[in-house]
């Protein structure tokens, strides 16, 4: 599996570490139901069979966190963007 890193170009996935679902947002700790929200954020997953947006970290490369779009049925990767929007480059495949 090869990931199109916006900084480094296409690299084999073994250079990266994956964290999982990138569509989740860290809840507001001040919310009245913060504990429930944090539970959902930390533990619950849609876990789709199909399109999945996920965090990959280019540990053995540029050390940037990327949002990668990948199909969990086929492993086909349709794009990757840097976590920091302002850090995207023209090589961004997404």
């Amino acid at each position, binding site marked *: 599996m090869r990931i199109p890193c916006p900084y480094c170009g296409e690299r084999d996935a073994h250079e990266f570490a994956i964290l999982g679902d990138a569509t989740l947002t860290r809840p507001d700790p001040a919310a009245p139901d913060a504990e429930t929200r944090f539970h959902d954020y930390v533990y619950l*997953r849609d876990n789709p069979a199909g399109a999945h947006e996920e965090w990959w970290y280019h540990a053995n490369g540029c050390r940037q966190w990327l949002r990668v779009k990948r199909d969990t049925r086929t492993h086909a990767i349709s794009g990757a963007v840097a976590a920091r929007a302002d850090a995207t480059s023209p090589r961004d495949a997404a």
Partner: protein
Amino acid sequence: MRYSFLSLLANGLSGQSRWTPAWRDAAPKPAYDVIVVGGGGHGLATAYYLAKVHGIRNVAVLEKGVIGSGNAGRNTTIIRSNYVLPGNEPFYEWSMKLWEGLEQELNYNAMVSQRGILNLFHSDAQRDAYARRGNAMRLAGADSQLLDRKQVRAMYPFLDFDNARFPIQGGLLQARGGTARHDAVVWGYARGADRLGVDIVQNCEVTGFLREGDAIVGVETTRGAIRAGKVAVAVAGSSSRVAGMAGLRLPIESHVLQAFVSEGLKPLVDGVITFGAGHFYISQSDKGGLVFGGDVDGYNSYAQRGNLPIIEDVCESGMALMPRIGRLRLLRHWGGIMDMSMDGSPIIDRTPVPGFYLNAGWCYGGFKATPASGWCFAHLIARDAPHEVAGAFRLDRFRTGHLIDEKGVGAQPNLH
């Protein structure tokens, strides 16, 4: 037909003409007391114990393909009860006890073979962790022995003791651990359940649930709607998808775990060995193939296949552990979809949806749990209360913080 020397003899003499189907290929009835979704080992064991222990025989097992074609037929066949946490160890030890009587109970030789499982350690800290584990096992009534380097060498002289990057210091041995023939476990439970009246319905995929108010009262399938008093789901690998149809999000991700088998060889590895300085475990099947595996690939996947980095990683560990296997060959590798839960431990529980019972989250450890999982899930379904050895496997433990995290890696499923 009961299997015996006599039945083999009679069939041998009659040109193998008298065998009958091991189980009926049933067509679904309109309604059952209990529907078990998932014709893997866990689902079939659940149905078997519902009928056998609880007398609930109006049961159907619905399988989307053929029975045993998911993880029950894709694992590395290891059985063991060498866990450390109080939420886990009594359950797995109960499973081990059920394994020990399984074949006589089912009249089916599942080749349950207690040739021992040895977890190697390579550092003082690992030794201490295994001592902690071995002591926990003893507290739960399981067997365990802490071996030193010399004792390990006596068991497996061909391991790399002398040139190793991470020298072997010793190992934790569970002599009662070992392997079982995975397919035969499926077939044995299927045959046993069938004989007690359970309908095993293959090629019947659940596509939705019948609802009455909040409650689930049956399933929609590719073979029509079927009503049920209770619907019990044991579909590891697809748990999120099936639970999703009932409106539930689960603390589970699906990951690929690869498994490997070599060409057939004369006896080489007697028991099960796990490497402590890398992700690698190995045993040898009765047919002679080395059966081995390692870590999950790490990414979410429903593809039942993995990639080269893990294949290489596993073989590197294999060669580091046993450098005599270099000229042996990998015959096949494949992948299974693991129900990786957020603390690495399973769920056997009721759910917020009335009528919907869940058995999920087995990570890469479901096979060894098959008998106890079926036993405890049947108990839960029949009595609406958890079995005492499975009381920690609650769905709400993530909310309450009563986690069962053997590895201590937290809510990152690919690290469990």
